[in-house]
């Protein structure tokens, strides 16, 4: 008889509580929303609405939308890190990167003469923000941007970003991804230092060899070329 009359409610903690009245659950629920409703007028922080154009949530640090090309120094054309090796073009799953190599070369951040991209287009309407191009790029030349207000009225031209629109300064890179940018800079500086040290060592070796050659001008084979 007992079980026939009583109805049971399995509570979270596993303890069973008898429901006395039919409307009990409804009343509890209604009081809950009433508390929300009244509370929203009393304390403002209950309201979670962010009124978008006026107030903005700060973008997360590792947010990513579409790629951009990093350049060092004041002038973007000369400072572009990209050496048009086309690895990212091959790796891009939706194939939205198009690169044309340049005929001549320009010095890169270490001073070595490198090819640079004469044309570097990304079709932003195709790009799926997978960041594979950033991972495969050996020269830290392409990073992910966090700018998302990209609405244009031109469906074709507007969404095909060329080299000039893609280029952003290293300072901008520091602004949107501070930790990552500083790591990249540290690595580049270290490589640069290594290259310069090697260059200096090679220079000294060359100088020493020249001195030795000058001291003993016997006709042995010249030292093996550079490093």
């Amino acid at each position, binding site marked *: 008889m007992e079980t*026939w009359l*009583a109805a049971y409610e399995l509570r979270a903690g596993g303890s069973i509580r008898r429901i006395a009245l039919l409307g009990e659950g409804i009343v509890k629920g*209604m009081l809950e929303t009433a508390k929300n*409703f009244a509370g*929203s007028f009393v304390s403002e922080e209950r309201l979670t*609405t962010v009124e978008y154009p006026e107030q903005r949530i700060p973008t997360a640090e590792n947010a990513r939308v579409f790629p951009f090309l990093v350049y060092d120094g004041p002038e973007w054309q000369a400072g572009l890190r990209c050496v048009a090796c086309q690895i990212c073009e091959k790796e891009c799953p939706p194939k939205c990167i198009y690169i044309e190599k340049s005929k001549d070369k320009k010095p890169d951040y270490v001073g070595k003469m490198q090819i640079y991209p004469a044309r570097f287009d990304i079709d932003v309407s195709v790009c799926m923000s997978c960041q594979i191009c950033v991972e495969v790029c050996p020269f830290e030349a392409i990073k992910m941007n966090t700018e998302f207000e990209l609405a244009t009225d031109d469906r074709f031209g507007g969404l095909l970003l060329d080299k000039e629109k893609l280029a952003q300064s290293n300072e901008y890179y520091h602004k949107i991804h501070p930790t990552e940018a500083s790591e990249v800079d540290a690595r580049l500086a270290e490589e640069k230092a290594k290259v310069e040290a090697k260059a200096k060592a090679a220079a000294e070796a060359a100088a020493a060899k020249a001195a030795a050659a000058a001291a003993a001008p016997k006709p042995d084979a010249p030292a093996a070329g550079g490093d």
Partner: protein
Amino acid sequence: MATTPISVTVDQIFILLRDWLTHFLPETLRPFANVVLGVVAIACVFPGLFALTTVFERKGLGRMQNRLGPNRVGPFGFFQPIADGIKSLTKEDIVPLNADAVVHFLAPLLLVVAVFMGFAVLPVGRNMVLVDMDAGLLFFFAMGASTELSIFMAGWSSRNKYSILGAMRAIAQMISYEVPLLLSSVTVVMITGSLSLTRIVEAQNQYTGIFPHWYVFTPWGLASFLMFAIAATAETNRTPFDLPEGESELVAGYFTEYSGFKFALFFLGEYLGMFSIAGLGATLFWGGWSAPLSILNFVPSWIWFFSKDMAAIFVFIWMRGTLPRLRQDQLMNFAWKFVLPFTLLNLMVTALWRFMEGGWLRWVVCSVILAGAYVLMGRTAMHRKHFGPRSYRYAE
């Protein structure tokens, strides 16, 4: 309790206004003009309230879910209904190819006409009722019953599986909740002895000390008001019972194939249905236009009617913000296995109430019977499979 002339004039302001307007006309046209002015008043006030309610609903629901409601269009979002109205007017009115054009077109019209007719008998204020009918309550329910036909016409004529399903569910739900709706209002008729709504309000408009004789303060009145409220929510397809237009599974139920102004007409019909059933609830159980305390009698009577109406609308919105949707079988089981039996029992208790002489004894007897029945039926019902707490079978 002679109310001071000022409050009487304010109370009767609309009647005086109407009489002043019609006295320009010749004698023969005057009754006709009175009716026309009454109709124009109803046709302006209630759709205006409908526009306000859409904003209240969205802002109220927002506040219950810890977010702001619409606040872009106009101050605090109060021009939102105008924006919605223009949007629904300018939207293209698509009629499906093999839909039955005539019936498709007539359905929303019949719905809105039937719902508007219901307002004719509601006493909005002291002698402010459009048509003081002797069988006013019966007229109201007759108009309520014809809305089901329009819902069927909408569902069937769209030739669309979802809408026919939604229409069938809506009609089954409305018919099974119409029986308790009528029976719970019959208790009020038994005690008042008349079907005319103005007589019902006058019967409740007496005071002992400062407390009014509203029916909701009697045991049978509270019980029938609860059942009336449940049935009214089901009649207007509102939240715990809004399966017919359950967005998740039925797209939009019987008005799936409607767009543009006809869609807006369906919404107008639904909200006006809410207003009229809330108005009827206020008239039958909460003393229509009578003041809650005798000392508050100086306030005009129509303010009380509309405040009770808006309070009921807030409860509708409040339920919409809280309660989950009932399944179709739970809904039907609840109607036929709890609401109807309890209403029938309440009829007997009301008869008992009427023929026992006054005093505390009848209060005790009636309250005990009703409370005992509620708890007993509630627990047996909750225990049974149909609408007891849900039992899950987890895959092992």
